[in-house]
């Protein structure tokens, strides 16, 4: 039940109204960073204060809420944010992507395709894709407003000249609706294609940097690249060792100090659902024996 010492979803109604206005503006101008008066939240910056505020302004009492951190439902960040809204909003929570209506995420997009009744909320540490190339905020704003995005390609050029390929593997810059260049938050570039033409609403909140931006459903999202070095949504070339999935993004887990390792789906819900459906990966039984030893 909602703790009565808090307003629904922690934030007061005026604050939520202010955030909703920023979200609506963000949806009206896809990819544009809307400044908003970020509030002090009961968690440190860097733990998802932006995402939490966007979720708080988005949640309704009938919503079902899911939180993932690097794809997992059971890591510290995910558990604490889920508990936070269980306590302050009293909304139902779930670990199943399919059943959730609002999903807050850090660093991943779920493998299960999203649908029109869902909102995906990203936690964003640094919303400005040009920040590490141009430190002045006045200048980056001007570059956005005048569509001067040559500098973004300088970063990719540097990658190729140093590593022989575009080595940026997360927070890979995208161009939205042919206009704004946007930082997709630190999701792996494997997830970039999922942002394009997505039926769900995608909202991005950066608490410390006080910016909100958004992608309306079915937006055109193109990852930047060179003609002779096209965008490659790479992942570890391996099936999941638990569920055998060939198409999901994998974490590499070191299992002992003798070179033993396994690749497992980073999306825990996807992996669990597949195993329950009878899919078995190469190391799945071995792990059970290992757990007993």
């Amino acid at each position, binding site marked *: 039940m909602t703790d009565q010492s808090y307003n629904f979803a922690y934030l007061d109604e005026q604050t939520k109204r202010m955030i909703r206005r920023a979200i609506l503006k963000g949806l009206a101008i896809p990819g544009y960073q809307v400044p908003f008066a970020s509030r002090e939240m009961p968690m440190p910056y860097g733990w998802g204060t932006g995402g939490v505020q966007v979720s708080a302004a988005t949640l309704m009492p009938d919503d079902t809420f899911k939180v993932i951190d690097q794809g997992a439902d059971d890591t510290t960040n995910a558990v604490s944010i889920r508990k936070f809204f269980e306590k302050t909003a009293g909304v139902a929570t779930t670990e199943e992507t399919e059943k959730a209506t609002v999903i807050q995420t850090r660093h991943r997009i779920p493998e299960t395709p999203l649908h029109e009744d869902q909102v995906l909320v990203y936690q964003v540490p640094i919303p400005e894709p040009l920040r590490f*190339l141009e430190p002045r905020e006045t200048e980056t704003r001007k570059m956005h407003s*005048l569509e*001067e995005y*040559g*500098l973004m*390609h*300088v970063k990719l*050029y*540097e990658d*190729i*000249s*140093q590593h022989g390929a575009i080595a940026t593997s997360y927070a890979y810059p995208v161009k939205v609706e042919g206009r704004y260049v946007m930082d997709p938050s630190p999701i792996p570039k494997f997830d970039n294609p999922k942002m394009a033409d997505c039926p769900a609403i995608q909202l991005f909140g950066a608490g410390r940097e006080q910016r909100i931006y958004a992608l309306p459903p079915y937006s055109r999202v193109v990852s930047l690249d*060179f*003609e*002779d*070095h096209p965008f490659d949504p790479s992942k570890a070339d391996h099936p999941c060792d638990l569920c055998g999935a060939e198409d999901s993004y994998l974490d590499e887990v070191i299992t002992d100090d003798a070179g033993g390792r396994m690749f497992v789906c980073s999306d825990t819900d996807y992996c669990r659902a597949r195993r329950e459906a009878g899919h078995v990966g190469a190391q799945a039984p071995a792990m059970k024996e290992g757990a007993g030893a």
Partner: protein
Amino acid sequence: MKPLLQVRDISKFYGARLGCRDVGFDLYPGEVMGIVGESGSGKSTLLGCLAGQLAPDTGEVLFDTRGEGPRDTLKMSEPERRMLARTDWAFVHQHAREGLRMGVSAGGNVGERLMAVGARHYGDIRDQAIDWLGRVEISEDRVDDKPTAFSGGMQQRLQIARNLVTGPRLVFMDEPTGGLDVSVQARLLDLLRGLVREMGLSAIIVTHDLAVVRLLADRLMVMKDGHVVETGLTDQVLDDPQHGYTQLLVSSVLQV
């Protein structure tokens, strides 16, 4: 022949203090104009006004654009002016650090302007960058080094390559040889003279070094306290100065 740049009655005040006043001249394609004067004479203010970095209080700067003929750059919208600044114009700063991205490799620095105007083929960009580094006498194996690893003279040459890669028609230079030792200056001037002649560039060079204008400039404008006190062909002004200040300036040069 049509002038490339027509400057009319440029005045700029900083509050009550005068920056420069009633400056006007024509610059023709392929011509190099030198602006000399002591510190505080308004040279850099004037250059800033011409290059669109400062807003003058009066006057107009007509640039002969490729598409639409002569247009007043001061009345252009900012996107148009910035587009001009990265295509047809180039600006060489006195300190290479101001004109370079110090955290980006030499190749990336040269390629930036190409990418800014839409080049999206890595191989082509890199080939052009290497070609330009060669033209400013930086060897190909330094293409992936950052400018922080370059000497002052190399940084200045890199800045020039970065500016000229898009084939501008007008180059603004603010003390391009300032802070370099004499032998490096000589090489840089030699290089600049070659490039200006080879590419048929027009250039406006602000300097207090008379040797620089003697080598590079076709025409000379002498400024003092914000006013132009003397103009003419370089050799004419330097060999037969008319105005008292110009005479002082010419006679102040150390003879070795």
